[in-house]
């Protein structure tokens, strides 16, 4: 499990930030993206995959979360 931060990029896309490894990347897909259910498996531009517990969509971004690494790039 790693602490991550999700924020909005300049084009309105989600941006993923993993401070521990200073990894900043766009999120290409998120499993659930509705108001009630948000999160699940997220795929990054660099090919990495992370999992965040599905939850209600956050009221504002950025938000810090715990995420599980499923498949890291490199």
């Amino acid at each position, binding site marked *: 499990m790693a602490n991550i*931060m999700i*924020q909005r990029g300049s084009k309105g896309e989600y941006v993923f930030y993993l*401070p521990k490894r*200073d990894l900043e*990347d766009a999120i290409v897909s998120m499993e659930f993206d509705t108001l009630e259910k948000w999160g699940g498996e997220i795929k990054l531009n660099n090919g990495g995959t992370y999992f965040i517990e599905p939850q209600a969509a956050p009221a*504002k971004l*950025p938000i*810090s979360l715990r995420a599980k690494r499923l498949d890291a790039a490199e």
Partner: protein
Amino acid sequence: MSALTREETEALIQEVLEVYPEKARKDREKHLAVNDQSIEQSKKCITSNRKSLPGVMTIRGCAYAGSKGVVWGPIKDMIHISHGPVGCGQYSRAGRRNYYVGTTGVNSFGTMNFTTDFQEKDIVFGGDKKLAKVMVEIEGLFPLNKGISIQSECPIGLIGDDIEAVAKKTAAETGKPVVPVRCEGFRGVSQSLGHHIANDAIRDWVLPRSEGKVHESTPYDVAVIGDYNIGGDAWSSRILLEEMGLRVVSQWSGDGTISEMEKTPFVKMNLIHCYRSMNYIARHMEEKYSIPWMEYNFFGPTKVAESLRAIAAHFDDKIKEGAERVIAKYQAMMDEIIAKYKPRLEGKRVMLYVGGLRPRHVIGAYEDLGMEVVGTGYEFGHNDDYDRTIKDMGNATLIYDDVTGFEFEEFVKRVKPDLVGSGIKEKFIFQKMGVPFRQMHSWDYSGPYHGYDGFAIFARDMDMTLNNPCWSKMQAPWLKKEEPVAEKAAA
């Protein structure tokens, strides 16, 4: 000499790597690249933020350097104790030229060195008592200090002293903030982690102090973050922001104070100059206090104008007009400087190797003078720094991460730049090789280089270095005479 093609640059990298044993070659190969502007993500061509190999000589610092030297050190009204043996603090004292206003030793302490001077007995029995005693002494001798930060050196982490407990106890006694920073030098691969640790300490120990306080804010409040006022940089940046109508509430951390930092959560926008060392706190403030942040670049008139407009775009028309007014006001002065120096510098080629923001930020300033940056690299950059650099650098130019002394020398010998900009450890090597050199960490004891006023000094300094008559006197006169004779003999 004309610019190298992509193939030539690649061949150059391979040639330089040849001397290494295979394992080292494989590792170093990942840190050297030929720039390709079409690449979106730097990690496809360059690896960064990795441990340097033992046996190669690189010029990185440590986490203590990143925290005490960079982030905390310039906060002028706090006393920063170098907690541990005496050397770390003493040999880095006042070396970074973070200018400040104030009376040193009375209400400002920037250039002073405070240390707990660890001895064997402190290592064996722990140094907590000594630390508490030092802080009592500080309160007696320097009552106008506004707080204390405890910058840990390596032994503190090794022996496991509880500096947090001492800090809390002393803070309760004095009523002033005491911030323990766990920035032991062995943490991380370079000073970069020290920046992060220092940012985290600010997040945990300084920003919460603003809670419940009242601040008379205006819609134009901004904070300048990541400007360390080297040679007065923050001042020459600040006046531009103020002239366009913004109110600069705090400066982090050059010429900064703890009360300014505590006021930062009330600003409307954080302006980040050094992204590498302060992006962490900006991200935190965005999340916790909903303060947006943006990066800007105040090197060279083109980038200054671009940045002023980008900053103004986040505010109302009054600020936008203000930005245009400021740009117009300085345009004549800039044209004059460019007219004076561009003919003397045009077409000259530069290689850089510095840290933080400079490897990409100063490119614009050189281009304004008609110069070209043909190689650049970071001491301690991360992938996101290189992402940003790829766009600023020309195609087929060299990019090197955590370059070793050998590689850098070889690159300079082959690329033959007209000017090298790097640190003090490289300066004399290149000067002895006959290459003009500027020390770009603290502007070679000059500065400021930020803002419009800074550009005037930047242009003058580059001209002064490049067109110095000494470069034509590199050969001893008696050797010069011999040359034609030797040629004749050979013929």
